[in-house]
């Protein structure tokens, strides 16, 4: 398993201009444009300066999307080229294969999360109220979306399907999960509908970690993030055990 994990980690690090830099630059641009330029019109949300308010959501957005993209792309590429047969025909178990592929997604997404926080610091001053809670929120988000990426990478029969899930499922859920606003600012039924978006709880947990406040309690947010991560990991493992996309 260590070899596959190492292979996935090296792939992320060697291709850093494609895997790490773009989402960090995008997050920095969001902070500059929305937080600093346009944010002066919004001033504060729940007593927090707007440029501070959006930082947790932007960090989480980078973590979620990159964790998904990494595993989905890596697995689909290996399937499409055929070289996935080498690890799949090896003595590694389904659990070891899942852990190996997860490594790349988790590493990439956490590096992006850390780099986004560092980049945000350049433009905005923000506290770090509960670093342990933030770390837990980011790790659980990373695991959940890296595992989802494994499932999509195994089921995909073309790049368009991955783009569909990434752009038309995950991205809208992220944007509607309270990255840029508090759900207290929403009217009914939008406020209630946001509670059905799992990413809302992940964003809220990260917001508790950085700002010390959020739309729901920190333990509820973290608990739902943990449940989602467990469900996604189970789905990824089952998909590997069934041999979807890798065994005929």
């Amino acid at each position, binding site marked *: 398993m*260590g*070899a*596959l994990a*190492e*292979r996935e980690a*090296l*792939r992320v690090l*060697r*291709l850093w201009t494609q895997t790490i830099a773009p989402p960090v630059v995008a997050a920095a641009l969001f902070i500059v444009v929305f937080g600093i330029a346009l944010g002066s019109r919004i001033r504060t949300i729940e007593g927090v300066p707007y440029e501070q308010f959006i930082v947790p959501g932007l960090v989480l957005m980078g973590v979620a999307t990159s964790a998904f993209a990494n595993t989905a792309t890596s697995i689909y590429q*290996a399937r499409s*080229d*055929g*070289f996935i*047969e*080498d*690890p*799949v*025909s*090896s*003595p*590694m*178990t389904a659990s070891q294969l899942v852990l190996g592929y997860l490594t790349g997604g988790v590493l990439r997404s956490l590096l992006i999360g850390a780099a986004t926080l560092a980049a945000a610091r350049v433009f905005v001053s923000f506290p770090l109220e509960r670093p342990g809670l933030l770390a837990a929120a980011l790790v659980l988000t990373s695991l959940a979306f890296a595992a989802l990426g494994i499932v999509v990478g195994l089921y995909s029969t073309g790049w368009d399907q991955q783009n569909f899930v990434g752009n038309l499922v995950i991205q809208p859920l992220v944007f509607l999960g309270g990255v840029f606003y508090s759900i207290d600012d929403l009217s009914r039924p939008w406020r209630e509908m946001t509670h059905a978006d799992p990413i809302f709880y992940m964003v809220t947990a990260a917001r508790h970690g950085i700002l010390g406040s959020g739309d729901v309690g920190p333990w509820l947010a973290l608990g739902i993030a943990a449940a989602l991560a467990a469900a996604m990991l189970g789905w990824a493992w089952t998909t590997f055990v069934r*041999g979807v996309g*890798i*065994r*005929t």
Partner: protein
Amino acid sequence: MTPGHLLPALRCEGVTKVFPGGIEALAGLGLSVPAGRFHGLLGPNGAGKTTLIRSVVGLTRPTAGEIRVFGMDAWGREAAAARRAIGYAPQEVALDRFVPVRELLELHGRYFGMSRADARERAEEMLVAFDLTQKAGAYANTLSGGMRRRLLLARALLHRPRLVILDEPTAGVDIELRLDLWEYIRALHADGTTILLTTHYLEEAEALCERVSFIRAGTIVASGTPGELRERFGAPRLEDVYLRVVGR
């Protein structure tokens, strides 16, 4: 209990594979390859050669039947040990293009349970044996077709398998490389490794194999040494036997 050295390297009993849509690729196939033998598997396109091989290496799950590698159930609890005993060079050259050649070999060894140091040492041996030392730092997708074919064989042998399965190893290669590959394969067999070879070239089977089996419509229709088969069918050449057994 049968001593390990007396067990056949490969024993298939009643192996059936029905693909979705009802296509029966293997129809209760039986095959036994004694340890240390060089066995050829011959048959027309679509006869089931590749499906059988993929079933042995863990890439196609049989619908019914049993496959044992040195007595170990290839799809049961001993699957990991069975896979460790197999080296597989597929028909399609599918090599990881994100890692350099030396690393590709080392990773394969580690996927198959070798320590990092052992895999590194063995990779150097394979680079020398297959005349790839000059290309150790290159990526597989930059190599010539012949080099890629050699690399595929080097990868299959890296973890010192006891049973090597070669699916059309000389398909589409020039005569010079074919003779080189024959030399590698003969040397491997001389060391006591069991080899199962599929090929469309009957002269290749005649030159290399101690025994051959003809496969048609997912079942073995004749087996024996080339001499036995010629005698049994009263044919001057193996090609004539082939035409009588599996031809139109």
